[in-house]
């Protein structure tokens, strides 16, 4: 009985994770700008990958520790790589979509003046 409940929980988590992965991929395809794409592609994909990996951990309880460590690693590193990419693309001159006032320009020029 307990194993059946674990199996149902595992399949439910697998389908939630796959749904978020597909939503994130559609967001990567359809969003108009680099920064929108970065947001859609990182936050939803973190949730989707964590749910998928924990679903496998529910389905196969002997691998639970490894799956938990892997999802914890994805939770720690994925927002960090997104932040690094956004900062690098802003400093390398990629303009946001429909930008009216760019307040970052002044700070970037001040940093260049300091150097």
């Amino acid at each position: 009985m307990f194993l059946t409940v674990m199996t149902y929980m595992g399949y439910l988590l697998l389908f939630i994770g796959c749904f978020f992965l597909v939503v994130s991929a559609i967001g990567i395809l359809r969003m108009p700008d680099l920064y929108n794409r970065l947001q859609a592609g990182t936050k939803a994909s973190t949730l989707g990958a964590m749910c998928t990996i924990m679903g496998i951990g529910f389905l196969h309880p002997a691998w639970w520790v490894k799956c938990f460590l892997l999802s914890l690693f994805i939770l720690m590193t994925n927002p960090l790589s997104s932040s690094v990419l956004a900062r690098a693309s802003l400093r390398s001159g990629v303009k946001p979509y429909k930008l009216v006032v760019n307040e970052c320009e002044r700070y970037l020029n001040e940093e260049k003046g300091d150097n």
Partner: protein
Amino acid sequence: MNIIDVVILLIGVSLFASFIRFLKGPTMSDRAMALDFMSVVVVSLMVVLSFVFDRSIYLDVAMVYALIGFVGTVIIGRYLEGGL
């Protein structure tokens, strides 16, 4: 059609959609972002395939691949910023 095949099909659809963005991204940061997303999707696909084939060693491969993908994304970011 088994229930795990639907899961693999959905993960493959998201991998294909991000690969289209990887091919036609206008700037270099788009391609780096699509590569990061593809590495995360491939890690979850490896975990699902380790359940299908019932091999525990693929989980270690997935963990090493997640580490390599993160380090690669950070190094590409540093290169775009101009500090490398």
